[in-house]
């Protein structure tokens, strides 16, 4: 596990990182927590010539409330800090619950929310969560900031709509009121493995019915997906309609086949896990 030679730049600010990115173009990669990038480099599947380390950019850490009622989480906030944060616990506990299932303790203390989203791995947990939450990321480039909705962020396998010269600075998620319930069913081979399939169910309950439902699917395609057919079937329906609605979970997916699962088995798991996630979320 010996990476190829690279140069190292420690960015003191987002502006310095952007300017280093501008200078080095696609030869450079940003180093956040390093828990996806460094393994790829050690396997020599990635060999960036320059690493731009965001680790000392303190402004990118922490959680605050935005004037528009959403939460803003600094891109370099480690997973464990998200899990432990009071504002997240109070207003968007689902994010803490999903993050709790990311990797292992070491990964959660070093890996960051922004890094995980920028990597854009459909098999990792946070992309589907951001998608289900209709969250956004704020990116900063040479021409300023822009906000990208989760639906537009994930483009293809390990590919996002973030440009080579842009840095994620914030992750924004809505506050969920007390009528929301949620559950994330992560199904992997061993405790620290990626999900073979994951299903995140979010249910807004109203007088015994489902007022609104969101389902985010992990590892059911090259990008994280929403189970829109389930969401449509269940919106406004009675809670006991969950099992039937969950039968639609694999519609519109393009699940891969690998050693752990065929496409057929993944589709089956998506249905079972979505049923379980929604049932628990509505309970």
């Amino acid at each position: 596990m010996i990476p190829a030679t690279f140069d190292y730049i420690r960015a003191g600010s987002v502006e310095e990182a952007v300017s280093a990115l501008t200078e080095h173009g696609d030869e450079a990669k940003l180093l956040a927590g390093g828990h996806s990038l460094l393994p790829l480099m050690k396997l020599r599947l990635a060999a960036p010539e320059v690493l731009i380390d965001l680790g000392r950019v303190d402004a990118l850490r922490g959680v605050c409330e935005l004037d528009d009622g959403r939460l803003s989480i600094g891109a370099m906030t480690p997973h464990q800090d998200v899990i432990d944060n009071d504002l997240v616990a109070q207003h968007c506990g689902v994010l803490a619950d999903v993050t709790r299932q990311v990797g292992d303790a070491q990964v959660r203390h070093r890996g960051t929310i922004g890094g995980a989203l920028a990597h854009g791995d459909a098999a990792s947990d946070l992309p589907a969560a951001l998608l289900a939450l209709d969250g956004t990321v704020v990116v900063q480039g040479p021409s300023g900031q822009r906000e990208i909705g989760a639906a537009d962020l994930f483009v293809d396998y390990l590919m996002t709509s973030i440009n080579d010269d842009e840095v994620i600075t914030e992750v924004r998620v809505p506050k969920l009121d007390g009528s929301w319930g949620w559950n994330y069913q992560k199904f992997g081979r061993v405790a620290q493995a990626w999900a073979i399939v994951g299903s995140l169910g979010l249910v807004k309950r109203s007088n015994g019915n489902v007022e609104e439902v969101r389902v985010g699917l992990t590892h059911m395609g090259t990008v994280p997906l929403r189970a829109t057919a389930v969401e449509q079937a269940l919106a406004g329906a009675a809670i006991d309609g969950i099992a039937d609605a969950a039968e639609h979970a694999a519609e519109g997916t393009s699940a891969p086949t690998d050693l752990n699962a065929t496409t057929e088995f993944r589709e089956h798991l998506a249905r079972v896990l979505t049923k379980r996630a929604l049932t628990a979320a509505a309970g």
Partner: protein
Amino acid sequence: MTALDTPPSTNVGVTKLRKEDAHLVTGRTTWTDNITLTGMLHVALVRSPMAHAKVTNVDVSAALEQPGVVAAFSGADLADNWAGGLPCAWPVTPDMKSPTHLPLATDEVRYVGDAVAVVVARTRYQAADATEHVVVDYEPLPAVVDMEAALADGSPLADTSLDSNKSFTWQKIDGEIDDAFDGAAHVTTRRFINQRLIPTAIEPRSVVCAPPRETRETTLWSATQVPHILRLMLALTCGVPEHELRVVAPDVGGGFGSKLNVYAEEAICLVLARKLGKPVKWTETRSEGYQATIHGRDQIQDVSLAFNEDHTIRGMKVELHADMGAYLQLVTPGVPILGAFMYNAIYKMDALSFTCHGVFTNKTPTDAYRGAGRPEATYAIERLIDEAANELGVEPFELREKNWIKHEEFPYMTVAGIEYDSGNYEAATAKAKEIFGYDELRAEQAQRRDSGDPVQLGIGISTFTEMCGLAPSRVLGSLSYGAGGWEHASVRMLPSGKVEVITGTSPHGQGHVTSWSQIAADALGVPYEDVEVRHGDTNVAHKGMDTYGSRSLVVGGYAVQVACDKVVAKAKKVAAHLLEAAEDDIEFSGGTFSVSGSPDANTSIQDISLAVFAAHDYPEDMEPSLDSDATVDPENFSYPHGTHLCATEVDTETGRVTIRSYVAVDDVGKVINPQIVEGQVHGGLAQGIAQALYEEAVYDAEGNLTTGSLLDYYVPSAADLPHFTTDRTETPATSNPLGVKGVGEAGTIASTPAVINAVVDALRHLGVNDMPMPASPRNVWEALQAASNGGAA
């Protein structure tokens, strides 16, 4: 101190915290990769990306231009440095085919990872970078991946120098096997696949070699289980005089058989250090190790059991296909052969036929992996007994009890021709059933079946035995093994009364320093803290057969006991002389020699040690020394046994298997250190469960290792494993004075069938009668799908 103050056994049988652990857990370790020598260079290998190809050209010139590179060689460049190929010490048949295995391939590569060139540079990073500048031209050849296809007429060859892919067929038939099957009232036949596994010791392999300096001695440090065997074999392979080669196994972090070998990198480092006159180091990366360190298992097992009307077993037929991989490593062909004595397991039968075909493929060589031949055999017989019980409509325990050897029948000569010296299957089983709550779990299982619970409960049984403590040299010789199975120990009594024990075993996690200290402390009557154990350096422990096959305590611990007994015998002579008494009147207890009937006339072993050092007054008919050597060669193997019970919950919707409870009652004879024994059982269970539920080395049709890193090869962690309930029965072995049996492999051997039997048991009523390993969610779900589609799974 008088004899009465100290009971004769204060250390053996008692948990002592391990002497090894303080330095291991505080990082003050001497792993081979921690060794840094002045001027040391770093070695990196260029490995074949193709499973099978002709090597038409190797050009290292561009690599030589890279920063820090000191030397680079192709296989052809080093070909003259080998006195022979890498050794296979177990030619199981006279006509066994074993292709020449040079440490660096010259004209043909035979598996992905076969090394073709080597780069030496000032830093590890420079060496790794420079390997990318070695240009190798390959002419692809067809890859042989499937064992059975490899034996078909017209199959491509895994090695073009051979005329077929069969290395050997080994056969052993005991009893009238045809009669046993012709007259059978019932025959149960199955095919089981014992999948390929990757050992995955925590410490990667690593080699450091220092060339001669002020003496002619070359020193090689290696993360090895077998420094003594390695010294001899490297001397032969590299043409270095044995007496000028010192091999050291420093702290070694796990082996499980994967470091019981003579590897290309060890020979390459030895040759490079001597050629360049500089110390060199090589340490594998994990993914490199997954290709270039031996794999385990990989057998296809066709097995049948013939029964009488009354459900007693008449005989068993076993036909194996065993994947050798591309080359025969140190004991590759012998591993499946060890199973020949174990398929009959604890059961009485009149006939057993065993046939094993060793097959070459273009995959990483296989070799010994924790249990080596016995886990495969135990899996097959314990699975088959369950299947037979189902076909015969009897409780699986009932069928086992009807056929197992009763405790009053020991010693028992088995159909395979070896004598089980002791055992008590009834006692271990009764204890296990009680702890497990067998009857209650059966009741819950019935309830869940009735209610159609999506999570079904299964109970798995494994009443296993194994043969270990690899010793009887004559028996090993009769199996064509290239060495003996004796072990050596020395005891040195120091003037201050402290003790040095030197052992020929070579621990890599087992805790020999602790256990051997306990044995010596009791045998000599000295404090446990006053004993130091030295090992693993051929300059210190000049003689030994090293550590594998659960042999260290049974053979090496026995040697320590005998060497201590010799010290006591000499000291007794001196005591008689000093106390002016007849030797027959001297009693020895708790380190004190006293005159029978006059307890005040006494002296301690420490005082005698000092007196002998001074040598002013000692018996005329002896040398002034208490030091002793012992080389022991037990007359039999040892046969641990036990009953393991596993309860699994199987989620029929997702295929997920969860172990709810696991009870292991092992009989490993007398126990030196209960905590070490428990630790061995826990680790063994984890590895056996790993085979049942998690691990599998998978190759694609081109011979690429698909599970090439820990990303795809699922080694379970503590988080994936249940609480283990362990207990013991104690039926002492009779083949050594300590009464001990081995414990290193028992947990692994027993647990794999226990888990798979439990998974099948959970799903039996749904039509599932077989379960491929690992019982992953995918495999379980597909078995359920096949069963519900009407086909037998």
